């Protein structure tokens, strides 16, 4: 079997393992926060319906429930996280296959951690800084198109900038030592990312709003009296913290599981075709 296909197979395996661990973590820590957010949403809808009735507006019909909360919280999140982990593990393996042997004398295992760190930053952490993860009840349904487009654009830009920074760093090592080359490439990445973050709008501005986010503020009666509180800050903080933690678990698992597998695979390859010539830097 082709060595690249083997690399990808190991990446998918490591990613699925990472997704499984992230699922275990999420089931324990995130689901209580998701339940709290859904309870908040239900209470707010009831309060809104009471205000509408008082104003003589007919209440909206509730959406039918396709899956119970138990199925969503016990099965759906697990399937979603494991599938996501396997897919990202495959993309990680592609990045690894493209990088291995092309960045000077980096060990197979160390490169696995470096690529996993880059994947964590590119696919999640940097986009999260601009458009953080939100629990249910946050986000207006009428802006889902714009929010999805902006989020995916942010992810695509970050991935592009990581790839370009790696390419730039590799070019710069011809003129600078590794330390300086990595710092320069990192600075270029930060600068490019900052420009995109400044140009893209905050979510609260979508649909004619002027807030920084779409997090619900207190619901007020026409008299101005608060009839339902704003979204609980602690629930939001914990949900986002656990979201980052789950991605960290996922990517750390990808790097740590993949590293020894790749080491064995490539050591075998190296032993079979051992030659005294240096690794080519063109490609």
């Amino acid at each position, binding site marked *: 079997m082709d060595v690249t296909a083997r690399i990808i197979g190991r990446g998918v395996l490591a990613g699925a393992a990472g997704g499984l661990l992230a699922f275990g973590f999420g089931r324990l820590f995130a689901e209580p926060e998701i339940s709290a957010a859904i309870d908040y949403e239900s209470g707010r809808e009831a309060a809104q319906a009471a205000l509408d009735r008082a104003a003589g507006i007919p209440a909206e019909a509730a959406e039918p429930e396709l899956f119970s909360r138990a199925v969503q919280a016990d099965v759906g999140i697990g399937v979603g996280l494991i599938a996501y982990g396997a897919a990202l593990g495959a993309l990680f393996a592609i990045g690894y296959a493209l990088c291995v*042997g092309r960045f000077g004398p980096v060990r197979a295992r160390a490169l696995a951690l470096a690529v996993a760190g880059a994947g964590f930053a590119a696919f999640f952490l940097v986009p999260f800084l601009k458009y953080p*993860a939100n629990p249910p009840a946050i986000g207006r349904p009428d802006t889902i198109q714009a929010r*999805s487009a902006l989020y995916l654009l942010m992810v695509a830009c970050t991935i592009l900038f990581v790839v370009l920074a790696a390419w730039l760093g590799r070019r710069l090592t011809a003129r600078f030592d590794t330390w300086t080359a990595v710092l320069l490439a990192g600075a270029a990445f930060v600068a490019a990312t900052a420009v995109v973050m400044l140009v893209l709008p905050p979510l609260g501005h979508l649909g004619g709003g002027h807030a920084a986010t779409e997090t619900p503020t207190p619901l007020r009666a026409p008299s101005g009296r608060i009839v339902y509180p704003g979204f609980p800050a602690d629930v939001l903080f914990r949900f986002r913290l656990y979201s980052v933690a789950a991605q960290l678990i996922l990517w750390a698992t990808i790097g740590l599981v993949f590293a020894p597998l790749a080491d064995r695979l490539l050591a075998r*390859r*190296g032993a079979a075709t051992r030659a005294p010539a240096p690794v080519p830097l063109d490609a």
Partner: protein
Amino acid sequence: MSLPNSVPADTPVTLPISRSAVVLAVTAVLALAVYYFVGVDQGAVSVFGNDTHLHEFVHDARHFLGFPCH
């Protein structure tokens, strides 16, 4: 398969990208499809029309992974 050059121990081999291009491209397309169906489909855009079974099933994962959900 033979590889162009390699150094033992600390410098891994270089994989032949041109010969693996098909494997890499097919993998990338499949992985991005899974990413799309877990994170995006039946939200802002949908390939299954108005159906929301997939959206509702992976609902919690979608929120937790940082995607805008609804």
